[in-house]
């Protein structure tokens, strides 16, 4: 019974813990497939950069509306989309490559955000924005996060095939006329929206961690694309559950706790996962396939 109290007690007893867990469930469901696609498209670092780019928008929303989720989310989405679109424009119109142009914009964005909050708010506010405040996840926030997750999954279902082809063989998609550019833009939009959904619980600094770490770890367990997405979501949810428990029992900030648990899961997968992990490749002498 002690295990039950330890593992389920906090959730049974406290509403905010339940809401946090449900919020993380929605994040895991939406973020799992998106994180998987980011990893496969080699956009992992760009996902990270986008999460930082969101900060000034969220900061503006916070300054104008307080710790209000709609205001911060709207600001965050605008900032994220602006960075994505502007850096895309610079890449297309000048010789500067996408990674450098993205880095430039997100750093400017991040500095702007920090400046805004530290001059007009307090340090505590900055901490809330950067690291999340799990206590602030109220029912409105839950509905917003849930809506975003649902929208993401629906949109992904619609653009799934062209998105996969655009990732796999972009020239082929152009030749058969599949609107690769449009699909890429929609995908970036989904990334931004999911990151914004995550920052309330995890903070802008950590939101991308729950998206990327499980996706990177899933690769050591399964092979098919759909399976990678599902495994990624499952790992994210498990990390959230354990992370929230640690944060409750050991009095740690929830965002970093969740992401660190995901990190441990990642290390475990790299070392001991059934597919292409260090153990599978070097200790058991690899596998032979027909």
């Amino acid at each position, binding site marked *: 019974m002690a295990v039950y109290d330890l593992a389920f007690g906090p959730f049974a007893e406290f509403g905010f813990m339940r809401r946090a867990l449900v919020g993380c469930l929605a994040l895991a469901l939406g973020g799992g497939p998106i994180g998987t696609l980011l990893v496969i498209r080699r956009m992992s670092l760009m996902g990270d950069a986008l999460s930082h780019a969101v900060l000034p928008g969220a900061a503006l929303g916070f300054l104008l509306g307080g710790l209000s989720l709609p205001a911060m989310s709207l600001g965050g989405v605008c900032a994220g989309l602006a960075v994505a679109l502007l850096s895309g424009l610079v890449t297309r119109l000048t010789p500067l490559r996408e990674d450098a142009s993205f880095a430039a914009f997100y750093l400017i964005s991040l500095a702007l955000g920090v400046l805004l909050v530290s001059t007009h708010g307090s340090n505590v506010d900055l901490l809330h924005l950067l690291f999340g405040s799990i206590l602030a996840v109220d029912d409105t926030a839950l509905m917003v996060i849930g809506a975003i997750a649902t929208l993401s999954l629906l949109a992904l279902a*619609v653009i799934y*095939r*062209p998105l996969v082809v655009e*990732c796999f063989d972009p*020239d*082929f998609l*152009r*030749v058969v006329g599949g609107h690769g550019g449009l699909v890429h833009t929609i995908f970036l939009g989904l990334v931004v929206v999911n990151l914004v959904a995550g920052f309330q619980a995890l903070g802008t600094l950590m939101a991308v961690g729950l998206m990327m770490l499980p996706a990177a770890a899933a690769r050591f367990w399964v*092979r098919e694309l759909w399976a990678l997405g599902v495994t990624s979501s499952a790992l994210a949810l498990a990390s959230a559950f354990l992370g929230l428990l640690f944060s409750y029992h050991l009095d740690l900030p929830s965002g970093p706790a969740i992401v660190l648990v995901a990190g441990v899961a990642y290390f475990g997968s790299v070392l001991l996962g059934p597919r292409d992990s260090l153990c599978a490749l070097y200790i058991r002498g690899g596998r032979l*396939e027909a």
Partner: protein
Amino acid sequence: MCSGLSLDSDCLGFVVSPSSPRALSLQGVTLAYDGQPAVQDLSGSFAQGSLTAIVGPNGSGKSTLLKGIVGLLQPVDGLIQQSAFGCGRIAYLPQHAEIERRFPISVIQTVLLGHWRRIGWARAASPEVREAAQRALAAVGLQGLERRPIETLSAGQFQRVLIARLIAQDAALILLDEPFAAIDWRTGDDLLRLIAGWHEDGRTVAAVLHDLDQVRAYFPETLLLARECVAWGPTREVLTPRNLQRARRMSGNWSVEPEEYRPVPA
């Protein structure tokens, strides 16, 4: 199969009126990278159902020309027109496919992509489509490997998967960029057989090639390119020692800076 050609006066000094419709025509087409001309002022056309080899020295713009035709590169000047017969049904086999080789996709899924026009974004692949994909795989000798992930294939096998995808596209205009470069001897023979079959079906085929003996043996028409058109017409009239020498002379000028580039006098 008799196919007429329209030859621009720039190329060979005379004009022959077409005896069959044009699948693709180029008018004064110039393609460039970063201001460096890769194809200059090319005019002419591919007749419907023709089988053309595109040859020329390295850097003569052959791959660039194909990229311009399929729309991966926009012409800086001039016009590329596909006839109504083409209807946008082009199949293109690139020289170096920018494909993510480790992508989690299977052989049969890659070939099914060739049916994009029928299944598009959302439609499921019907049994007929699946059967067609199976036949395409069998035509390149990869039957039985449907479920294999592509990252486990060799370079030659993967090239054959791309050819199967091309077959699945069932296109009226087929463009191949150095298709024999990455494959082994046996597959090369099979590919020549496939190309002959496409020609018999009445499809328009153009291929960038390096082996002039192959061109003389299997390709009725040739376009000899050295950034500008050197000659375009029946193979035995184009691949003459004089034309080949002229192309080589023109290519000797290419290490020069663009400002100093002067067209070689005919």
